[in-house]
């Protein structure tokens, strides 16, 4: 367990999600970045999580089946004529 900038690797792992969301208070963010600059292991973890998130984000979403869309548009029209 390495300690840089008064944060252990465990502390950093627990806060990586907040860091990626830009939700850390400025002081904590600075200490976490100092830790990352000196700790190859945490820096690698951060990059791998970033890569995972971007891979997930890049996956194409699902499209509504045509039949369902037709049913729903019909329901919209039925409401119009009701």
């Amino acid at each position, binding site marked *: 367990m390495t300690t840089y900038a008064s944060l252990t690797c465990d502390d950093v*792992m*627990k806060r*990586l*999600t*907040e860091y990626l*969301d*830009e*939700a850390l208070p400025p002081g904590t963010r600075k200490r976490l970045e100092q830790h990352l600059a000196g700790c190859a292991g945490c820096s690698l973890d951060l990059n*791998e*999580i970033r890569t*995972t*998130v971007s*891979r*997930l*984000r890049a*996956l*194409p*979403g*699902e*499209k*509504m*089946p045509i039949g*369902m*869309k037709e*049913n*729903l*548009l019909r*329901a*919209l*029209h039925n*409401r*119009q004529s009701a």
Partner: protein
Amino acid sequence: MTQQSNAPVRFQAAREDQLLVQALREQDENAFSLVLDRHYSAMLGLAMVHVGSRARAEEVVQETWLAVLSGIHRFEGRSSLKTWIFRILVNRAKSYARRESRMIPFSSIGDGPKGGMATLAENSAAGGDGGWEGDLQHQTVWGSADSPEDRLLSTELRLHVDKAIEQLPAKQREVIILRDLEGWSPEEVCNVLGLSETNHRVLLHRARTKVRATLEQYLAEPEDV
């Protein structure tokens, strides 16, 4: 991001909501079609967490939209339109799951890890409703990538991601689907799922760690094995 820098985004989102709600109230087909396409993937994913199969999840999505059409005149704008729609979806999916669990025959109780309520993976393996046949039909529309090879890789990766996500506890599944697959903000996820920011981040961190391990394993596998 500061609250101040969020203000124009919030204003723009609220303005867009107003226009969409107005258009839906006027039964504008183009506006309805737009919201159907925009939210389908997230709605299906979230419904599947609760009801376990694609066929049942599709039913929940359809029921949700019918409820939205019936209720749009009562929408008061206390939450965003998206939050309102997804809360209806989650409530309906939970009710559906409760209803289904009451209908499980005694003989099937204890068959699986969820007391007879098959997961998508179980259904798929068994070739049941919402299984591979149905899944593969849907997977053919996933490919927005350019070449057939890209589409194949994308579809294959999606299958692995789906399998990894299916192994997660329900709350972790909900959070990672909305945050990472659908790109929702922390605030939107917390509003729809009724979670605190801290709790949602703990769930997200755990989910990402497990999915990351599965993806790394998959991506490290040699192609010819």
